[in-house]
């Protein structure tokens, strides 16, 4: 690094800087601080603790399952109870534990790895956390009240439809899980923008720590995989509540539509869970082997191709639904193909071990546990991809065993390794009590005993999701062994949690960078302070701490960028996406209770329909909009600051005075998810049209000329208005006429959408009508959003928040308007064209 040598700096500078920054970034130390903090350390820790609690709950449910299956003809549970228990076990583990747990880890670690001070949207992170806590708790409380869903974690209709699952169990699932998916999308957007824009100076994409790559890929996958599932939940919930027949064959629906939407999500989900764990291994293993990752570029390529491939494979979960033969062959071959990128990763890691000098230690031990387990899981997975074999074991305990080899071996073990590896960083302590080794040797062998027995039982024909079995079916011994071993495993997991908890609070203080890692997260103080880095590091390679062992000192003395706290606000650096050059200075928002409040009303709007409290839900929705506007209003400024001194002679503009502030980037990715959601709706429409029995409908919607003209003019006005507004603001002219034009345009589009609904009253008649209503509903929702945003923009302009420099907000509104126009026209065309040509 080209920094002044440490000796020439006055002593005490680091301490003064630390005190100044600590004051600026501190969260409220009182209890209420937990509700107002948006600092990534606080949010991440809370996230981690809650996710771990859900793991414990899911584990208790697993023990109940194994207790029931330990003996034949068990009277411990009735089938109704068993069905609730395994459904909740799967749901809790997949949605409430696995995904939030890695989100928590990335919130805690990403800013450090990237060399920045916090996540891109701290308040959004806090919001995601609270929505998750409320949604997850609601699901658990419902279970304790005996109202749990009981249709299995993939909730196939018609079994989950109102006719066969009366009561609110299925609604709890649909609404609770959807709210958690909303929270996951919020976090994913935050992660993406952080990785792309918030990094150390000079950290180009190819210098990023490998975990950042993995988590970037995973977050993009979340944005593309969750929307189909959200759509599926929406369709099913609407069917249950209002009887719109999306999955009812008699009225033009098709239960297979659910399976497609579910597995469009469910298959990538497996990789969404596995890839963060793989990223942890790729981070930890080279350090433990005292070397660098072998084939960094190939590992990145493998992660990307795994993500791409995983979206082509959902059909392999539907091999037994009567897919045409050619389809079967294609998907079968493609499914085995995912083994290639996976094996590239595995062998890159083994090659890394080979290249270096490994030392054992607890993180490494768990990684060895991962290898032994995951390789078996991968092999049984390849077996399952072979169609004839799949036909034989599909829906037996063989599948249960495979899935646990992959999920526990491929996710839980590496995550435990990660916890132990990062414990010195997160808590500032080194392990003192050595319970962890004992726990390891309890868990891994008993895991294999449990699930090898379960594999065998599956091969012998034991069906999954059956609540008991007869003594003469020959599965008694295997199940007893599996159950006993699973109790030992549970004790092992409990010891692990205990070990981590005890060591987090009472172990001895540790020193910085105990493993000798080369990446930036180890260059800050330990445990990581709220502000992360005293100054933004300057890096010239992939392993900056190896390039410059004194880096930590330089950073602490404020010798990087922004090493000067005199502006007394939370600043961090934005860099160019590809090359990592400093571009902007961004001011992050301070503590606020708004995210918590917004989460309260969001969750209310999701959960109130459970009790048929539709008015409450509607009011909550209004409150959501109102609070969101208050939230947004508090950001930005009324005067142009011009360029500010970022250190090293760099004068950089504030992000709020740029054309692409973080909010713009966030909107782009939110709209990506929104677009996928819309695309899934079109897919569903086309699917029902071509595959569902009882199509085509009796009659088509006939487009009316006036509505078409209104729609086209509206689209034109909504395209032109925001553009003219941006131009007017940029020139310092009056923007309100252009904004008014946009508002009129969005209202016109909304009217056209309403005409679709008015022309086809009775969405409950046929899936065709129901789909038209959803298409029109999509347009309606987005036009209303656009109109609200445009009004907001007008108010901002009037209040002096916009200027030729502070033009980012207008650009964001334009982005939303463009999306509304594009999808609106497609939706209306999809609604009108069949009638026009029929």
């Amino acid at each position, binding site marked *: 690094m080209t920094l002044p040598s440490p000796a020439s700096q006055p002593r005490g500078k680091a301490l003064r800087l630390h005190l100044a920054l600590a004051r600026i970034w501190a969260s409220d130390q009182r209890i209420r601080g937990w509700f107002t903090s948006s600092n990534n350390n606080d949010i991440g820790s809370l996230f981690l603790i809650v996710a771990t609690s859900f793991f414990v709950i899911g584990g208790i449910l697993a023990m109940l399952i194994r207790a029931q299956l330990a003996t034949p003809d068990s009277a411990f549970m009735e089938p109704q109870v068993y069905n609730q228990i395994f459904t909740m076990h799967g749901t809790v583990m997949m949605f409430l534990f696995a995904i939030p747990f890695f989100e928590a880890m990335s919130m805690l670690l990403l800013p450090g790895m990237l060399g920045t001070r916090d996540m891109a949207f701290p308040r959004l992170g806090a919001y995601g956390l609270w929505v998750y806590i409320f949604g997850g708790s609601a699901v658990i409380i419902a279970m304790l009240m005996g109202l749990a869903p009981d249709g299995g974690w993939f909730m196939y209709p018609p079994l989950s439809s109102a006719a066969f699952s009366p009561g609110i169990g299925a609604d709890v699932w649909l609404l609770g899980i959807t709210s958690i998916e909303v929270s996951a999308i919020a976090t994913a957007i935050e992660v993406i923008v952080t990785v792309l824009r918030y990094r150390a100076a000079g950290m180009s994409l190819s210098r990023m720590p490998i975990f950042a790559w993995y988590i970037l890929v995973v977050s993009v996958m979340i944005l593309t995989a969750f929307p189909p599932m959200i759509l599926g939940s929406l369709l099913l919930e609407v069917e249950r509540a209002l009887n719109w027949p999306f999955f009812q064959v008699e009225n033009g629906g098709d239960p297979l539509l659910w399976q497609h939407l579910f597995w469009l999500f469910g298959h990538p989900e497996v990789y969404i869970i596995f890839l963060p764990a793989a990223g942890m291994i790729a981070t930890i293993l080279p350090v433990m082997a005292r070397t660098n990752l072998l084939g960094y570029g190939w590992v990145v390529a493998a992660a990307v191709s795994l993500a791409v491939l995983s979206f082509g494979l959902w059909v392999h979960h539907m091999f037994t639904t009567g897919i045409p033969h050619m389809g079967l062959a294609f998907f079968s071959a493609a499914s085995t193909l995912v083994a290639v990128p996976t094996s590239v990763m595995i062998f890159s890691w083994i090659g890394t071990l*080979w*290249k270096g000098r490994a030392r054992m230690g607890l993180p490494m031990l768990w990684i060895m546990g991962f290898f032994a387990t995951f390789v078996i899981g991968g092999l049984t997975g390849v077996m399952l991809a072979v169609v004839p074999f799949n036909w034989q074991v599909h829906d037996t305990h063989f599948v249960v065993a495979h899935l646990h080899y992959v999920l526990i071996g491929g996710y839980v073990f590496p995550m435990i390794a990660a916890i132990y590896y990062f414990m010195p960083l997160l808590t500032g302590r080194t392990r003192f009590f050595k319970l962890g080794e004992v726990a390891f040797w309890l868990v891994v062998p008993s895991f294999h005993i449990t699930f090898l027995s379960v594999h065998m039982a599956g091969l012998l024909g034991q069906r999954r*999701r059956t609540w008991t079995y007869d003594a003469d079916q020959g599965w008694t011994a295997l199940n007893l062994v599996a159950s006993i071993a699973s109790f030992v495993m549970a004790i092992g997991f409990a010891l692990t949690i205990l070990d981590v908890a005890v060591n987090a609070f009472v172990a001895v203080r540790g020193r910085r960078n105990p493993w000798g890692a080369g990446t930036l997260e180890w260059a800050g103080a330990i445990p990581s302070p709220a502000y992360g880095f005293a100054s933004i590091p300057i890096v010239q390679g992939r392993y900056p701490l190896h390039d410059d062992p004194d880096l930590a000192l330089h950073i602490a003395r404020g010798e990087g960028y922004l090493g000067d706290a005199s502006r007394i606000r939370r600043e961090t650096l934005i860099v160019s996406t590809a090359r990592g050059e400093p571009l902007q200075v961004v001011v992050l928002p301070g503590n606020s209770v708004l995210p918590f409040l917004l989460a309260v009303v969001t969750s209310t709007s999701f959960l109130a329909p459970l009790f048929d409290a539709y008015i409450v839900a509607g009011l909550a929705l209004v409150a959501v909009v109102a609070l969101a506007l208050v939230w947004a209003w508090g950001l930005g400024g009324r005067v142009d600051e011009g360029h500010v001194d970022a250190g090293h002679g760099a004068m950089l503009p504030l992000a709020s005075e740029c054309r692409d502030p973080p909010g713009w980037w966030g909107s782009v990715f939110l709209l990506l998810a929104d677009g996928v959601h819309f695309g899934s709706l079109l897919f569903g429409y086309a699917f029902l049209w071509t595959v569902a029995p009882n199509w085509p409908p009796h009659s088509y919607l006939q487009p009316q000329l006036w509505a078409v003209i209104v729609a086209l003019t509206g689209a034109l006005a909504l395209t032109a208005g925001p553009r003219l507004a941006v131009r007017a603001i940029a020139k310092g002219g009056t923007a309100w006429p252009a904004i008014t034009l946009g508002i009129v345009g969005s209202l016109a589009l909304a009217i056209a959408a309403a005409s679709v609904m008015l022309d086809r009253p009775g969405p409950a008649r046929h899936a065709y009508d129901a789909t038209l209503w959803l298409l029109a509903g999509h347009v309606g929702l987005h036009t209303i959003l656009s109109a609200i945003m445009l009004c907001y923009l007008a108010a901002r302009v009037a209040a002096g928040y916009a200027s030729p420099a502070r033009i980012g907000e207008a650009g964001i509104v334009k982005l939303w308007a463009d999306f509304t126009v594009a999808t609106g026209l497609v939706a209306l065309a999809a609604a009108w064209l069949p009638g026009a040509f029929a």
Partner: protein
Amino acid sequence: MLTCALAIFFFVMALIFAALYRPPNPSVCGRNESGTRVWIWGLGVGFPLVTLAALTAYGLFIGERLLPREAPDLVTVQAQARQWAWTFRYGEDRAIATDGVLHIPAGRPVNVEITSTDVIHSFWVPRLAGKLDAIPGHVNVLRIEAALPGTYGGQSAEFSGRGYREHVFTVEAHDAASWATFLAEGTQ
């Protein structure tokens, strides 16, 4: 397939152990180039491609044999699932019906037309063929063939709620004579 899988597993584990417990390597750096060639290309890409190609070919070959094909002596029956029972229908106009027992002729290919009247179920006779789903509104055709007369156990293999475990049936494979009797008695 199992032996192959075991072999691969032990191969990978042996590599890891060799990497861990081998004498320290003097030249740690500078080996990235050759390392990439061996580990990434050879083992990471080449190895699974070869194994998978073999496996997929094998799978497709077996799968081909399971396909319903034209056969002169083909018998078609209908299997209708509901919570938690099976009804089977036979004959030209589906006039014969049995509950819980599927009658088929032994030694002849049989097409089972599978459907459901309520939720999704799955038709599975482990000793005769793989499983195929019974989906309301759809008819899936499964080819089965029992080589010898006798009784075969069958069950649903898609979770269907409370009575799922008891949702089973049996298959009776008849020799030519008793199959003729069955059809004759049924049509009366």
